[in-house]
């Protein structure tokens, strides 16, 4: 039986899709058969981040409406074995999704996959609620700023009251993924620290992804940032996946790096 992971945040633009792509790819790289589902119907982005936008023929809504089979709509990732993408429809809206339709698709996927990663749209309305409804585990993506933290708090409330697990009296497992973290700005008092966010949200920390130029580059090139093993963000995502799978890894990139003499002279970026 597959584990269903929802990547959610409440607030938009905090890095849900980037994180979904990294988590999906990371799990597949470790040999788990993984499918990434884009729940952001109408604002299809995951295919761009994954670099498969030119291969989209059928989408999630087509499968729900039985206009295509799941096998026709699933896109096999060219770089990573075991990784599949189910893109969202760009021409429809969130009303095209239904609880029964989503459940049927997830049930069919669960038969052959180890992990189903649901990339949630922003907000707390229907689209976001459907993305998290069937989740076993939630990765809550948060930026170190007050509005993002409050929205994450809100979505955690929705998770524990409106998901199927909650309705059955169980709990959805929660993970905090803090993205766009900048230790120097934390030191300057311009940004919430990891401890501040942990204190407010009171859920276990899965990882801290540093603010990195590698993320934007990776997005624009359509390569998940976790594939960029030289970048700090790529390494941080890799750590997060390891922790997700139960490995004990120390958190990195939490403090300002002291630049060595050579890097100061040559201006190499971290």
């Amino acid at each position, binding site marked *: 039986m597959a584990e269903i992971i929802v990547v959610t945040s409440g607030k938009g633009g905090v890095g849900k899709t980037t994180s979904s792509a990294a988590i999906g790819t990371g799990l597949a790289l470790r040999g788990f058969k993984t499918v990434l589902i884009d729940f952001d119907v109408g604002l299809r982005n995951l295919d761009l981040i994954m670099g498969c936008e030119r291969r989209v023929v059928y989408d999630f809504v087509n499968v729900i409406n039985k206009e295509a089979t799941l096998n026709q709509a699933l896109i096999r990732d060219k770089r990573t074995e075991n990784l599949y993408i189910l893109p969202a429809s760009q021409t429809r809206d969130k009303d095209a999704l239904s*609880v*029964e339709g989503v*459940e*049927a698709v997830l049930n069919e996927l669960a038969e052959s996959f180890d992990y189903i990663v649901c990339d949630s749209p922003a907000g707390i309305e229907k689209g976001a609620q459907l993305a998290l409804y069937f989740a076993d585990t939630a990765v809550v993506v948060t930026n170190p700023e007050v509005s993002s933290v409050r929205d994450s*708090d*809100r979505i955690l*409330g*929705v998770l524990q009251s409106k998901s199927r697990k909650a309705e059955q009296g169980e709990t959805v497992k929660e993970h905090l993924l803090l993205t766009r973290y900048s230790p120097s700005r934390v030191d300057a008092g311009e940004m919430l620290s990891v401890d501040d966010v942990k204190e407010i949200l*009171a859920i276990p920390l899965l990882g801290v992804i540093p603010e990195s130029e590698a993320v934007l580059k990776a997005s624009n090139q359509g390569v998940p940032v976790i594939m960029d093993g030289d970048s700090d963000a790529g390494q941080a995502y890799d750590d997060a996946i390891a922790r997700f799978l139960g490995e004990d890894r120390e958190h990195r990139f939490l403090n300002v790096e002291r630049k060595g003499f050579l890097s100061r002279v040559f201006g190499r970026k971290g």
Partner: protein
Amino acid sequence: MSKTTPMAQAVNQESETRCFQFKSTRAALNELILTTSDTQLLKPQLAAHAARVPMLFSNMPVILNLQQLPSAPTLEALQSLLALCRELSLVPVGLKAAPESATELCTTLQLADFSHQRRSTRDSEPAKTAPEPAEPAPAPQPATAAAKVITTPVRSGQQVYARGSDLVILAPVSAGAEVMADGHIHVYGPLRGRAMAGVNGNTDARIFCQSMEAELISIAGYFKTSEDLHAECWQQPIQALLRGSRLDTVSL
């Protein structure tokens, strides 16, 4: 598709949107036990009581208990009793009367019949009040139901209300969350949202918390915002209570 069977079931379950649901609920109901049906005698006493605890009388549902009356009242007398209750902002919802007459009275007056609520027969007079000690007396005390205990964080946007009882929270209350109780509120995590104790007008209710970081606290309608709290007791373990019409914070 191969999944037609489970899907059809799912569709059936979900597409039939139900228009109603019956759920058992425990509402705090007070009983107004009358020893006279003389409205002239009753009115000043009841009005004086209402003046003392106006919040309690604001549309409080009550059951009129006629079983202690020396003689069964006439329909007219009963109607004027009901009118008096309504005048004083009580909402009579039902009657407790002699079982022989209760059904007819309730049908005529369109009230619920509570006469058969107790297991003991009418004949065993002393047993009448004894078997149900949980039944609140018609005094202005709130019902003493067991406190509601919450062990998971109360998140932004969530509301928790302990109706007719105290509220105990063993987790953080986030900014943007609301916790309310008719009795006291205890918060053992940081209190960052809104806390309202004694919402039914109980001025004896208090708020206790380990770390006061609330957006707003209120007792029986008297409130303080985070602006005041910042100056007084921010992030301190405190209790809040009413002294007259002043909401005071006292460190624990």
